[in-house]
């Protein structure tokens, strides 16, 4: 039993890593008041570009770097459109997803070697493999935490840092002020537009690493739709974690865990409950959202940043 649970936990963490990266990224973006629905596209481009890089250079660190670069580029487009040009953020995010999905698929059929019909699909490259930490990985159950790949270990570090930065530093305070009440933040001398640019781009970078984890570690290689809707799940996870990086892990474990359990169910040949099981996290998210909003009506601050998805312009209310 313990062995089974340990293996489920290990798979859950592996499936959850990309989600945690992207969730923390999107939390930062949304906390500054920018809603980015382009995650699915950004994760796909991150996944395809990092796999192509590792295929040709064999360098995993370069691959992650290239993915980060694509994240910077795509989120800059979103930032420019939604912050400077004050475009509708829902439409802008969706167009990033549309473009990113198409572009990733395009690259996946063009960047491959001539011998494979220029396809990247079906190729094998370097990948992040689990590194067992001596001693720790032998602990029953919790050992699963210490038999993971490098990117997962890094995310263990990012979670507390992201939390500390957001809630215990001056920069974090400014970031939250910009998302809560940009007028006041502006009056306090915070550059609202610059802050939003910065965290939209930082967020996008993390999201792209999430994509890279898929093609470099979780499901090494490139396949169309490798994200399987993870970019949308992340939007739910952000709500679920109440815009707090330290809680990002719980939602990711929930979704990842349901994936892992479903994996077991499929292996045992039962297909019916799988879809209904998959539905639960989305229902839970809606309920969580309702409860949070309801609590806010009593003056408790738990929910979405007040200025989420609202462009800011000086002197305009």
């Amino acid at each position: 039993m313990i062995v089974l649970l340990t293996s489920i936990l290990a798979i859950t963490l592996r499936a959850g890593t990309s989600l945690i990266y992207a969730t923390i990224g999107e939390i930062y973006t949304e906390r500054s008041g920018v809603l980015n629905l382009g995650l699915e596209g950004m994760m796909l481009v991150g996944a395809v570009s990092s796999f192509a890089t590792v295929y040709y250079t064999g360098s995993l660190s370069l691959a992650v770097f290239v993915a980060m670069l694509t994240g910077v580029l795509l989120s800059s487009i979103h930032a420019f459109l939604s912050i400077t040009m004050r475009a509708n953020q829902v439409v802008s995010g969706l167009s990033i997803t549309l473009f990113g999905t198409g572009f990733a698929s395009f690259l996946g059929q063009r960047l491959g070697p001539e011998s494979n019909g220029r396809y990247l699909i079906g190729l094998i490259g370097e990948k992040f493999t689990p590194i067992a930490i001596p001693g720790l990985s032998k602990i029953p159950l919790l050992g699963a935490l210490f038999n993971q790949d490098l990117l997962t270990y890094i995310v263990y570090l990012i979670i507390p840092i992201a939390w500390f930065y957001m809630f215990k530093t001056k920069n974090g305070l400014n970031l939250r002020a910009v998302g809560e009440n940009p007028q006041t933040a502006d009056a306090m001398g915070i550059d609202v537009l610059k802050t939003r640019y910065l965290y939209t781009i930082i967020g996008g970078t993390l999201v792209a690493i999430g994509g890279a984890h898929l093609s470099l570690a979780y499901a090494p290689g490139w396949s169309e739709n490798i994200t399987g809707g993870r970019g949308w799940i992340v939007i739910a996870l952000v709500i679920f974690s109440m815009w707090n990086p330290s809680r990002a892990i719980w939602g990711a474990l929930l979704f990842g865990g349901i994936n892992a359990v479903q994996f077991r169910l499929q292996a045992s040949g039962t297909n019916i409950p799988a879809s209904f099981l998959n539905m639960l996290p989305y229902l839970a998210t809606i309920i969580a959202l309702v409860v949070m909003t309801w609590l806010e009506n009593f003056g408790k601050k738990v929910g979405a940043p007040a200025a989420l998805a609202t462009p800011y312009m000086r002197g305009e209310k």
Partner: protein
Amino acid sequence: MRIIFEKRNTISKKAILLVPVFSFIVSLFLIGILLLIFKTNPFLTYASMYVGAFGTWMNFTETLVKAIPLMLTGIGVGLAFRLRFWNIGAEGQLVFGGVIATWVALFWSPFIPAWMVLPLAIIAGMIAGALWAGIPAVLKVSLNVDETLVSLMLNYVAIMIAQGLYYGPWRDPDGFGFPGTKLFPQIAWLPRFSGRAHYGLLFAVLIALIMWVILNRTKWGFELKMIGRNPRAASVMGVRIGSNIIIALLVSGAISGMAGVFEVTAISHRLQQGLSMGYGYTAIIVAWMAQLNPIASLFVAILMAGLLVGGDQVQMMMGLPAAMGLVLQGMILFPMLAGSLFTDFKLKVISNKEEAGV
């Protein structure tokens, strides 16, 4: 000297027309560069995309097949957006409409007169879509829950319900394990007029006209416009905002639900994987590009569908990825989004002198 944006008093008619045309040209140009990088002739690519989508009557009917759900969901989404209700749940409303229409087609048709099956399927599907859109509307109005997030989550719930059904209890026992229900009886098939293009087109055009009249020629349409422009002022004038939002969203969801009904009754004749092709998301773009105008949505839907079908065509003809269509769809939007600023604002250059004088 510096440049500022000044809000226009009225939206610029010239910008409304010029921005999309200019955006289209810019995106063709940018993708052209991308194609050149990959050693492909952009002119040839565009020509074969055009032929693939509009070149022959047969190809055009395929474009219509994809355009019909986009028209309907585009009109539906557009209605919600008019109220600044950011409903991104058209996908779920479409799917749930399809699911309920399937229920009628498969399980009711033996017990009701043949002529009633299709109308009943359509009505049931519309009610289903309306309910699906009603959930975020009621939550928004009563508790102020964010509608974007709720409607997005409901997409997944609808898709999972559909999956659970065609993988589970509704699965065709003679389907060799194929994930889908059994074929509908013929009485539940919506007729096609040419190729796979079906009479859902008539419904789409009719609804666009009706919506246009409602929005521009009725008191209710006027109220909706007021709410969209300035909710506070509308409220002062005695317009009831909450109930209007809920009613508008029920109508919006019903129209999207209808798109789902047509997908199952006219195209696949069963509920199966691939009912949700992302039409509901593309619909948002259709509605937005059409400036929320229902009649313009018809034409934008044909253009967007043409890009998808044209993308399939370049794959067959030139071995280029079909994703070209998606790339183009996304790319057109970037300059358009940037340009949308100019319909509401104008650039004003302020010289140093002027600034010193103030």
